[in-house]
């Protein structure tokens, strides 16, 4: 491989990352902090793309710089945007400064022990990686090694990560959801089927969103299905699908989205994705193999012989995508409307 201009690309980005972090922490207004944190996330995405880790970069761009910023803005919308002044005088601040500096010094002193950048003899590169690199195409016929490692070689990990996303959605739901029968707020009536537009809402934003949402969804389906060959896969595609629904919610009204996707349907679909993943694993057990050993699904799945692992990966990615998509939209509706599910950001 020719010598790539890594340092010219990475060093300005690293400086920018530190600058962004310092700026974000020194702004007093919480909205400004949230917005600058979105840019900070995207700088991290660029650094990972520079290292060649495109799947990670894609996930960071989609989640960190996109959806996560919208979540923080929704939270600030329902709480306040000021930070309360910190109690404690000068000795307290001095103590905190000393503790943080000592922790930083301890962490930084471990840096000379790391293997060099890109060294082939480091433990990560020398033990398991050559097996993955040389055996992926032979085992699963999937050129994207990251997708194979994620969904096939380390399938249990991904199952439990999907369950964690599911638990996050349920946790926010159970903390924030307000039971309508017991609350004494003025109720805006049942959710209607026709859209309610705020008269001050902008036609331009609505029309542009109406144009972009189908393309986003099509692109997200492409990302899920093409995850075998290009960076992508279930998580990234699911996040972009969820982001398209969030776009509908913020450019039209939240009630418009709730008229399309009722609350019960959203919660059901979140669970359904994890269920699909688990059922694929159980299907392998029924066919006589271990749990999540896709090779045994050969007689059941269409296609030529021993493409079962590739198709198994695709089924599992679809399950992950479904869960992530509805988790994103469930969390957004809960955060934006403060649990009332009627009006919001």
């Amino acid at each position, binding site marked *: 491989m020719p010598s790539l201009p890594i340092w010219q690309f990475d060093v300005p980005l690293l400086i920018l990352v530190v600058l962004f972090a310092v700026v974000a922490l020194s702004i007093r207004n919480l909205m400004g902090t949230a917005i600058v944190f979105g840019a900070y996330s995207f700088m991290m995405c660029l650094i990972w793309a520079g290292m060649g880790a495109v799947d990670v970069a894609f996930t960071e761009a989609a989640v960190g710089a996109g959806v996560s910023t919208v979540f923080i803005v929704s939270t600030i919308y329902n709480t306040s945007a000021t930070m309360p002044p910190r109690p404690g005088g000068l000795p307290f601040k001095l103590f905190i400064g000393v503790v943080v500096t000592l922790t930083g010094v301890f962490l930084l002193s471990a840096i000379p022990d790391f293997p060099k950048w890109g060294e082939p003899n480091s433990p990560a590169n020398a033990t398991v990686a050559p097996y993955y690199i040389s055996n992926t195409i032979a085992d699963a016929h999937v050129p994207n090694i990251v997708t194979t490692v994620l969904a096939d070689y380390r399938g249990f990990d991904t199952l439990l990560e999907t369950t964690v996303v599911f638990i996050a959605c349920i946790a926010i739901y159970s903390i924030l959801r307000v039971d309508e029968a017991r609350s004494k707020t003025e109720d805006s009536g049942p959710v209607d089927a026709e859209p309610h537009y705020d008269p*001050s809402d902008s036609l331009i934003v609505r029309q542009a969103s109406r144009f*972009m949402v189908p393309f986003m969804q099509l692109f997200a389906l492409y990302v899920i299905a093409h995850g075998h060959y290009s960076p992508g896969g279930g998580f990234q595609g699911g996040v972009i699908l969820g982001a398209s629904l969030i776009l509908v919610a913020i450019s039209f009204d939240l009630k418009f989205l709730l008229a399309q996707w009722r609350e019960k349907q959203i919660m059901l679909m979140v669970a359904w994705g994890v269920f699909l993943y688990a059922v694929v694993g159980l299907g392998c057990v029924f066919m006589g193999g271990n749990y999540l050993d896709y090779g045994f699904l050969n007689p059941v799945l269409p296609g030529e012989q021993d493409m079962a692992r590739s198709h198994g990966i695709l089924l599992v990615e679809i399950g992950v995508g479904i869960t992530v998509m509805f988790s994103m939209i469930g969390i957004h509706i809960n955060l934006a409307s403060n649990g009332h599910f009627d009006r919001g950001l």
Partner: protein
Amino acid sequence: MDILAGILISTGLIFFLGTTIGLLRFPDFYSRMHAAGKGDTLSTVVILLGCICLISTQGDLSWILGLKILLIINFIFIGSPTATHAMMDAGNKAGAKPWKKDAD
């Protein structure tokens, strides 16, 4: 083709430089949005057109890549001015005051 790509990319960079100077020097929020919305979108579109010319000479799947870059141009062309409009509307509703020339 490479010369065309070079011309397009350098033109885009000049536009972007103008945008940045405008963003810093304009006295008012609304005029800064003019600079951001128009100059930023135009410079990005021109630079990406230059990128399409650059990659059209290398590789065999380059027409698919060119199509994808055309899609990016499409979304930026529609999305970025709309975002500028939304931000200006938000600034108006939130009460940012336009700059008035001082009576000298």
